[in-house]
C-alpha cells in the first residue's frame, strides 16, 4: 500500500499548445479513495493514464510511495486497472477466473489458492469458488472481476469510468459495492468519473478538474459547502446551484427588488477585475418561501413544479428589475431552481417570493470567479 503524488505533472499532446493536464499537484494518502471528476476533456482520464504509465509525463513527476515512477513501465508500477477486462471465462471455475493471471505469472499454486480464498471472503464469493460463472448473478460476476485485481495485491487500484457500461440498476448497486469494498481492503484507489453524484457518494476526497487544471480538492462536504470557485459551485450538487451576477452597492447586492447584505470581508476581497460585481450562488435547498414584505425577498415566477415525493422543486424565472444580472442554474439560463415544501407546492404561473437562508449564500468575484470569504 502506498501514497500517490502528482508533482507538477504535465501532459502536452503533440501538436497542441494547451496542456491536457497542466502542472497537476495532488497528494493521495495511503488507503484513500480519491475521485477525479470533471466534464469531458477536463484531463481526468489523462491524469489517471499518466499514473498508470499509459501517457507520457512531459514535465513534473509521479510518485507511488517514495518511488518515482515517471519513467517506469506500466507493468512494473504495481498498480491494477480494475475492470479493464471483466469478461469471464465460461469453462473455468470462479477460483480460476480470479487467479489465472497469478498462474501466468508463475505464482505457486498454494499461494494462489490462499489469495483467491481471501479475496472471495471479502467479496462474499467463498461458496461459489468451485462453480462456473454461469451460476452467478450479474452482481456476483462484477465481484469476480474485482477479485481478479484484488488477488494481485497491487499498491494502487485505478478505475476509469468503470460503471459507464452497466445498466442503471447495476450501476447504483456496484457503486456501493466498490466503495464499501475499497474501505474494507484499504488499498489506495484513484477513480475517474464525469458523474458528480458518483464522486460525492464514493470518494473520501474529490478532485475537480477543468481544462487540465485542478480546480479544488477536498471532501464531498468541503466541495458542497465551500466551493472554491464558480465552476466547482455549479458542477457539484444536484440539482445544481443557482448562480447570478449582481452589482454590489454599499455592501449590498441588488437582486431584483431584494437587498442582500454582503459581508465586509467579501467586499474587501473584491478586485478591480470584478468591476464591482459578484456572482452570488445559492442552492435550491438554501431558499425559503417568504412574504413579499421581507427585505431580502425576490420574486420568482413558477414555470414548472417537479414533485419527487420527498422533495419538490420549482423551476422558475427571477422577476423584477434585473438589468445587468446574468442568472443561470442547472435548469438553464434565466432559470432558478427552488426547493419547496412538497406538501405545499405553488401552481404553475404563480409568483412566489423567496429569500436565501442567512449564511447559506456563496459569494464569488465576478471577474476572478474565485470564492470571496465572508
Amino acid at each position: 500500500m502506498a501514497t500517490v503524488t502528482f508533482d507538477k505533472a504535465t501532459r502536452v499532446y503533440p501538436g497542441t499548445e494547451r496542456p491536457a493536464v497542466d502542472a497537476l499537484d495532488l497528494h493521495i494518502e495511503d488507503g484513500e479513495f480519491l475521485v477525479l471528476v470533471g466534464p469531458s476533456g477536463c484531463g481526468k482520464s489523462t491524469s489517471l493514464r499518466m499514473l498508470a504509465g499509459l501517457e507520457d509525463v512531459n514535465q513534473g513527476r509521479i510518485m507511488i510511495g517514495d518511488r518515482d515512477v515517471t519513467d517506469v513501465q506500466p507493468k512494473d508500477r504495481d498498480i491494477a486497472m480494475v475492470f479493464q477486462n471483466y469478461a469471464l471465462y465460461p469453462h473455468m471455475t470462479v477460483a480460476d477466473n480470479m487467479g489465472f493471471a497469478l498462474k501466468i505469472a508463475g505464482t505457486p499454486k498454494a499461494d494462489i489458492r490462499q489469495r483467491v480464498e481471501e479475496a472471495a471472503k471479502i467479496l462474499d464469493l467463498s461458496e461459489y469458488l468451485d462453480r462456473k460463472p454461469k451460476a452467478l448473478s450479474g452482481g456476483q460476476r462484477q465481484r469476480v472481476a474485482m477479485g481478479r485485481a484484488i488477488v494481485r495485491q497491487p499498491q494502487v487500484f485505478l478505475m476509469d469510468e468503470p460503471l459507464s457500461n452497466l445498466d442503471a440498476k447495476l450501476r447504483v448497486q456496484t457503486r456501493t459495492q466498490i466503495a464499501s469494498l475499497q474501505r474494507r481492503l484499504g488499498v489506495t484507489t484513484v477513480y475517474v468519473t464525469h458523474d458528480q453524484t458518483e464522486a460525492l457518494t464514493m470518494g473520501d476526497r474529490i478532485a475537480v478538474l477543468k481544462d487540465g487544471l485542478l480546480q479544488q480538492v477536498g471532501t464531498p462536504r468541503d466541495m458542497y459547502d465551500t466551493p472554491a470557485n464558480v465552476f466547482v459551485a455549479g458542477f457539484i450538487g444536484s440539482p445544481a446551484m443557482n448562480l447570478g451576477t449582481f452589482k454590489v452597492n454599499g455592501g449590498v447586492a441588488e437582486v431584483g427588488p431584494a437587498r442582500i447584505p454582503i459581508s465586509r470581508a467579501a467586499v474587501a476581497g473584491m478586485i478591480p477585475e470584478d468591476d464591482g460585481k459578484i456572482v452570488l450562488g445559492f442552492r435550491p435547498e438554501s431558499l425559503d418561501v417568504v412574504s413579499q414584505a421581507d427585505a431580502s425577498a425576490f420574486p420568482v415566477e413558477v414555470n414548472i413544479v417537479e414533485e419527487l415525493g420527498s422533495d419538490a422543486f420549482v423551476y422558475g424565472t427571477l422577476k423584477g428589475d434585473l438589468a445587468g444580472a446574468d442568472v443561470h442554474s442547472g435548469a438553464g439560463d434565466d432559470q432558478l431552481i427552488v426547493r419547496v415544501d412538497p406538501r405545499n407546492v405553488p401552481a404553475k404561473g404563480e409568483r412566489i417570493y423567496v429569500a436565501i437562508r442567512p449564511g447559506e449564500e456563496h459569494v464569488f468575484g465576478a471577474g476572478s470567479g474565485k470564492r470571496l470569504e465572508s
Partner: protein
Amino acid sequence: MAQSLQITASSPDPDLLDLPWEIPLEQWPDERLAALPRGISRHVVRFVRMRSGVIAIKEIGESVAYREYELLRQLGRIDVPSVEPVGVITGRQDVNGERLEAVLITKHLQFSLPYRALFSHALRPETATRLIDALAVLLVRLHLVGFYWGDVSLSNTLFRRDAETFAAYLVDAETGDLHQKLSPGQRNYDVDLARTNIIGELMDLAAGELLDDMVDTIAIGDALVERYNELWTALTDEESFDVGERWRVAARIDRLNSLGFDVGELEITTDLGGTSVRIQPKVVDAGHHSRRLLHLTGLDAQENQARRMLNDLDEYRAALDRQNEDQEFVAHDWLTEVFEPTVRSVPRELRGKLEPAQMFHEILDHRWYISQQQQRDVPMLEATASYVENVLRHRPDEQAILGLPPGSKQEGL
C-alpha cells in the same frame, strides 16, 4: 407499445425496424437469430440474419455505444481491418415502458472465424503460430495509426483465411482510443494485456477440454509478444550503416515486404562525413497486392490470395505472349476466361463453403499438387473437378459456420 426508437446509421436498413426491439436481446426468439458461435463478451451479443446479410447486435450503454460506433467508423476510414459499424439504436422500451439498453449494430464479417472455432478443432502448432502472427500484424497496424486497444484478446478478434495464413480483424473497440501517436507505455500495456488475455482464453479452452493437453498456452502468449516486437522493430527502427553497404536498403525493403508491409517512403540521411547512412521506413501500409488485384480485376481479396492470383495472371500473360499489351485488358480476359469459369464450375451448393478468392487459391494449389503427382500439366477445369471431389466436399461451411445448434444460448456470458 409506444416506442420512440432513435436510429443513428449512415445508411439505415429499413428491415431493422421489424426487429423486436421491445424485447431484451437475451430473450429474442430463436427463429430471429443466426446460430453463429459467439465469443466471450461482457455484454449480450446476438447475430441476426437480414436480407442484406448477417448483423451482430450488442446491448451496451448509450454513450459507450455512440463512442464505439464513431471509433469503428474512423478505423474503417483509415483502412484498419475492423468490423463495419451499421448503427446505434437508442430509446428502446419494453412492453411495460421499462427502459432497455441501447444497441450497437455491426455487420457480421463474412467468412470470418472466431478463435474458438480455429483453436478447438485439433489445433496444429502451425495454425496457432499463424493465428498469433495475424494478431501481431493487426496489433502493429493499429499501433502505427495510433490506436490503443485497451482490451486485446482473441475474443475481440475475428480471423479470415488468407491463402495459407490468416488475416485478423478488430471486432470490439469499446475500450479503444485513437491518439496521434502512442507512447511506449501504451503499446507495452496493450501487448502485455494481449498476452494475459490470450493465455487466459486458451486456459479456458483447456479447462473445457477443447484444447489438446499438449498445447503450451503460455508459450503461445509469449509468441505474440515476441512476434509483435519483431514486427514493430522491423517497421520503425532506424538503421545505420556504411555508405558501401547500400544493399542493406534493399534488404530492409524486402524484409518489410515479406512481413506484408509496403514501404511508401524511406528517410535516408547521410552524416556529414558521408561515411554512414541512416534509413527509416516512413509510410508503411499493408495490402499492395490486394490493391493491385482490385484495381486490375475488381476482385477484393486478402493480401496473400491476391498475390497468388496475380502470379497466375502473370503466368497467363506470359503463356499467351501478351506481355506487351495493356495489363488491364489481359486482366479482364483472365477474369472471364480463367477465374470466373473456375469458380462457376464448382457446384452451386458447395460455393458457400469458402470465399471465391480462397477457393481459387486452393484450386491452384491442388492443381500444382496433382500435376506433380501425375507428371503433367493438369488443365484448370479438371483440377477444379478433382478439388471439389477430394477436398471441398469434406470441408466445413465457412460462410457462416454453424458452430452451435440453433437456439443454443451458451457462451454469451
